[in-house]
């Protein structure tokens, strides 16, 4: 059975790129562009992993993680952000990994595989 990933990314072109690349890796990707939509999806379906941006319109990714932790502590979370400077803090936000956005998705894919035990 395909592993399900919830992707939260407000930049639509990036969202499409990730969706395409990760689907090609064999994952079932549900992409949303804001935190509220992510929380709604979490209420509707089961996910094996969540990838979220930090800076998004409306609720930011850190608040989203805090809210997810109140609901579920068992889903691994990757922060995918352009901000290198936040990397030291990701544990404080209870995420499992922090990947700085880059044109190469190799690191992100590697972290996904690691967290899903593949």
């Amino acid at each position, binding site marked *: 059975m395909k592993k399900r990933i919830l992707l939260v990314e407000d930049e639509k072109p990036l969202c499409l790129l990730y969706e395409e690349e990760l689907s090609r890796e064999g994952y079932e990707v549900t992409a949303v562009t804001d935190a509220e939509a992510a929380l709604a999806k979490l209420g509707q379906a089961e996910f094996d992993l969540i990838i979220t941006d930090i800076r998004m319109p409306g609720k930011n990714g*850190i*608040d989203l993680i*805090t809210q997810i*932790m109140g609901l579920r*502590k068992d889903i*691994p979370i990757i922060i995918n952000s352009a*901000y290198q*400077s*936040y990397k*030291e*803090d990701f*544990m*404080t*936000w*209870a995420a*499992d990994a922090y990947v700085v956005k880059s044109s190469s998705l190799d690191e992100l894919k590697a972290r996904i595989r690691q967290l899903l035990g593949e």
Partner: protein
Amino acid sequence: MSELRKDLISGRWVIIATERSKRPDDFRPPAPVAAAAEAAGFCPFCEGNEAKTPPEVFALRAAGTAPDSPGWTVRVVPNKFPALTPGPPPPRASQGVFQSMEGRGVHEVIIENPVHGLDLADLPVAHIRDVLRVFQMRIRAIEGQLHYQYVQVFKNKGKEAGASLSHPHSQIVATPIVPKRVKEEIYGADRLFRTFKECAFCRILREEEALGARIIARTGHFTALAPYASRFPFEMTVLPRRHSAFFVEAREDELEALAAILKDVLTRLKVTVGDPPFNMVLHQAPNQWLSARHWPELAERSHWHIEIIPILTKVAGFEWGTGFYINPVPPETGAQFLRQA
């Protein structure tokens, strides 16, 4: 709100506690208001004065008694002058090379018993066990809020040890980062694990028990010893003999045994050096949830324990400058005195 500031060179975080600078017991005479009030016979921690503390977050109390009223045996309240304020920490800020973050965290006071003059060592073992059980409950509750990476439980007894009120109490401070000293202990234990192929604390326990010279007391579950490189006279460490990284994993029978050995060693300390001020500090692995995610190996490499540091000497210039401590009482001698007490 307080602020956490990182020392660029050492990597140490400092809490710049603006809330606490408003504390009545300020740095200079005239005599602190709290101490003066206490000297006049008033104590906010005594039974009957519940309204003088912030509302309780937890209490062991008689059935049918209302929160913030008499009838409790152990009571937990937020610190009136907290070093840190609850809430998820925002990202770090920086100004040039200097890093800071809002002082988010938890700061609670555990009032160990309703009677002013009864110290921890004076309480029955069952009551001390209840205090330890409350520590566990609060650690679990705080660790559930995943933005706190480390929960520190400690007790300051006596003014020289940092206590601003003499009514017996302990404190819990949860921080949004793993403190430097805790990291140093983790890294040290990790390095030794790779050398010994077992938990360094378990190895130390085995060797100390075989040697015997620094053992102060021993039961089926716990060993109290004077550390080999004790920094202070009559310094003690109480270690569980069953390996565990997390204090919250201590079972009910182990809490009972811990209560008994704490009562024993604290009474020995009283008898040997005349009821000195002391600091009692719980050492454990960071937040269990975060450890499981980020340092899964900690469960086998870290070993919770309690450190008791009597305040009999002063940390002065040489110690501050070098990190060396000058201990005038060899731990073997200290342990012998405490054993014989």
